[in-house]
């Protein structure tokens, strides 16, 4: 990539949020802000490019590699561009007991993509995730902060149609 790093910058509102986050920790412990700040970055750019990670490293006064090693360890950070809505589908046992695998098959067919894929219109990216701590309300998937619970084929159709409008 040849894009100059200084083209990457938080919006003023987000920069304020980031500074508030950094101020939560004791002096010299600003690295603690890394995970929350990466969430803020992902909110702005949708995914974490190396330019964004380098920018975050600069803000937190840490080495870029310290950001890369964290961003690649945790599953919530997207390291490639994603669609407008990222569907994070729970594939773990308790959801499967509630018919999660059948509903997942239906969802994949409906979107015409497999795990990791993005629809041609760029609206949906599908990700498989592990247990979301919502087992009593399974099957579940999550889109950003929203949980969609007790899923059925019909509910999935409705959700996809609503989000496609």
């Amino acid at each position, binding site marked *: 990539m040849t894009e100059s790093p200084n083209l990457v910058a938080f919006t003023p509102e987000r920069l304020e949020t980031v500074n508030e986050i950094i101020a939560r920790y004791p002096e010299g*412990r600003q690295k603690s802000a890394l*995970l929350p700040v990466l969430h803020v970055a992902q909110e702005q750019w949708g995914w974490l490019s190396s330019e964004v990670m380098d920018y975050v490293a600069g803000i937190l006064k840490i080495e870029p590699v310290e950001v890369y090693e964290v961003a690649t*360890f*945790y599953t919530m950070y997207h390291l490639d561009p994603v669609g407008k809505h990222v569907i994070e589908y729970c594939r773990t*046992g308790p959801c499967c007991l*509630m018919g999660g695998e059948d509903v997942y098959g239906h969802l994949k067919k409906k979107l015409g993509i497999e795990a990791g894929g993005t629809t041609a219109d760029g609206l949906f990216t599908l990700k498989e995730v592990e247990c979301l*701590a919502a087992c009593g309300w*399974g099957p579940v998937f999550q889109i*950003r902060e929203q949980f969609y619970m007790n899923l059925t084929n019909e509910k999935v159709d409705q959700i996809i149609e609503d989000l496609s409008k």
Partner: protein
Amino acid sequence: MARKILTEHINVPGIETFDVYRKQGGYTAVEKAIKTMTPEEVVEEAKKSGVRGRGGAGFPMGMKWGFLAKPEGVPRYLVCNADESEPGTFKDHHLMKSIPHLLIEGMIISSFALGANKSFIYVRGELMYVIRILEKAIAEAKAQGFLGKNILGSGYDLELVVQPGGGAYICGEETALLESLEGKRGNPRNKPPFPAVKGLYQSPTVVNNVESISNMPWIINNGGDAYAQIGIGRSTGTKLISASGHIQKPGVYEIELGVSVEEFLNSDEYCGGIRKGHHLKALVAGGSSVPILPANLIMKTANGEDRLMTYESLSDGGFATGTMLGSGGFIVFDETACIVRNTWNFSRFYHHESCGQCSPCREGTGWMEKVLHRIEHGHGSMHDIDLLVDISKKIEGNTICPLGDAAAWPVASAIRHFRDEFVWHITNPQEATAPGAVYMGDMALV
């Protein structure tokens, strides 16, 4: 109706707000602790209560507090573990989103007891909406003088920070959580030193589960002795059970420790029984990592006694015939469930979540997943069963943190109690891989 300590007011409309929570008697325990008690007296009540770590380990909380080092001039930290990620467990999620002030009140009391002036609630990042609920509640409590500088005019200061994770089961392990809170990968630390001596930022730190801390307001209001009178023996108080799977009423239930498994499973107050027209085949009582038991062994111990929802009764018989209360993730399987498929699923989970630091876990979880995948998909050989047992034994006890054990136990226990089902998959691959096929054999259903 059983006594409720944590969920008594959970369905009161508006309980997530400071005003409604306060009207239900909220924050009186903070007033009592900070205005009339010393930190040592608060610790003493926690010890008397006998409350044990509700995240899964079951270690007495008061004793854990007692280990906290208190060197002069070094800050001490309380960190609440809200990284709830053990499959089958969703009680902390339910508690925090429904009644956030209960945890905050517990955090204030506990921080006061430990002499912490900055405390953290580490919430798994997927629960960002819960983080926002907690942050709103914290702002309310601060505006009312229950947080911040000079709380209730006592001279005690406390700042409460909510920290999001990034998606990693391993961060439920307390030292991995501390690494993550320091902005690093969630690799568990070698112990000793334990967090009580060198924890967050190398300072003395206590890490406690959401539910454990949420008991503190009741314990302060009613006394540790009153808490200890609830329950049976060393299983004192109440426990939140996350019930999922093939039952009539999945959800989170608060039980008095000591209720029988049968009552919890079948009474209308709790799970309401197995879904209509079906029978109990197997049960995981304490989250995916604890040994799975067949129907007959979960209802009665090997000695024929009623199995109770207590730390002791569930582990009666050791791993040969017993299991663990763990996190209280109660996953119910009826006769339509395939044990091989479920074991493969859990195995994939642990492989995915292994941090990769220790070879037995990093490699072993991958091997187990692969072998289980081929058995489930009709390509297994009889040798694979012994191979799985062998791998599980070589992981168990050979890793820095308990994730290795957590990965080994579900596999070892599934083979221990459901070996016939594995054999059937291997010897009847065509039948076993047909859509919806499940081994029926002659296993005992209840």
